[in-house]
């Protein structure tokens, strides 16, 4: 077990004393498909400031680093997309004999059930 030095003592006590616990924000974070966070990311990628849009979420990600990593990653991708900087995957298309089979399985998952089409 590691022992605290000066820096991580402060880090630990800072976390214990100050980290926010906002249940609505946590509920947002725990959902992979949270549209509110997606919408925030869109706006931040376009230049708006998170602390102006949802200060509770900005405070949350100051202390909960996993959330910050994920949010920053999404914003980075969106900015790259807006700037036309996403790489062309055609160049890197590897030969994968399973791709066709996997695509069939994916299509079957998204097809509506038979009764819905009658």
């Amino acid at each position, binding site marked *: *077990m*590691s*022992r*605290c030095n*000066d820096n991580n*003592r*402060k*880090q*630990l*006590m*800072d*976390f*214990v*004393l*100050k*980290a926010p*616990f906002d249940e609505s924000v*946590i*509920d947002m*974070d*725990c959902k*992979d*498909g*949270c*549209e*509110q*966070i*997606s*919408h925030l*990311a*869109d706006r931040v990628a376009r230049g708006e400031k998170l602390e102006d849009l949802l200060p509770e979420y900005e405070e949350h990600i100051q202390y*909960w*680093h*996993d959330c910050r*990593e*994920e949010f920053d*990653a*999404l914003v*980075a*991708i*969106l900015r*790259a*997309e807006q700037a036309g*900087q*996403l*790489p*062309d*995957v055609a160049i*890197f*298309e*590897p030969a*994968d004999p399973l791709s066709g089979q*996997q*695509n069939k399985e*994916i*299509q079957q*998952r*998204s*097809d*509506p059930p038979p009764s819905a089409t009658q």
Partner: protein
Amino acid sequence: MTDRVGERTNEAWLADLRGETSAQPEALADLRERLQRSLLYYLSQERSDLRDLSSQELAQMAEDLSQDALIRVIDNLNTFRGESLFTTWANRIAVRLAISDLRRARYKDFSLDDMTAEGDLMPNLSPTSELPPGPEAATERSDVIEKINRAFEEALTERQYRALEAVALQGIPMDVVAAQMGTNRNALYKLLHDARRKLRSYLEAQGLPIDYMMNLFQ
């Protein structure tokens, strides 16, 4: 393909992907390509820890992750309510999946059990050279730090302490800690919150107000 991807509305994406139109195969291919490009960008440009991987390896990772992400997006289509751009929503699913995968790989040898097996359970919050001068102040600080040490020992369950140390001190990702504890991220949040609340209550009962402690650790 890229231009057609950029033109779909949320409603068009949903209709196409659900097979309500004849464009389902094209929509699936477009979405997969979009996710793959996003993930390849992320892996190649935003992850310094992957710098040693070749372009082909990164491309393969992006391909594999985008397939998994596409499945997850399709499985969750009915939860999308149109409150954001569909493509951003899909990208969020993909990037979280990628980050989770990378975290699991990075911490595959990590064990919560090993954290406590190395020695004392409690952090040794020892006085530092930053202490104010004077014997009385030094004694006061030592007393406070001793109370904090005791708080960790007496106020928390072992489970709470291990979670707190892993996340707050070691920086272990919550997903990794949650998996090792047999729980999920949401429950881990609550566990950590309970641990923090107990520590604060304990310390306040020892005559250490929160404001005082916050100033102490500035």
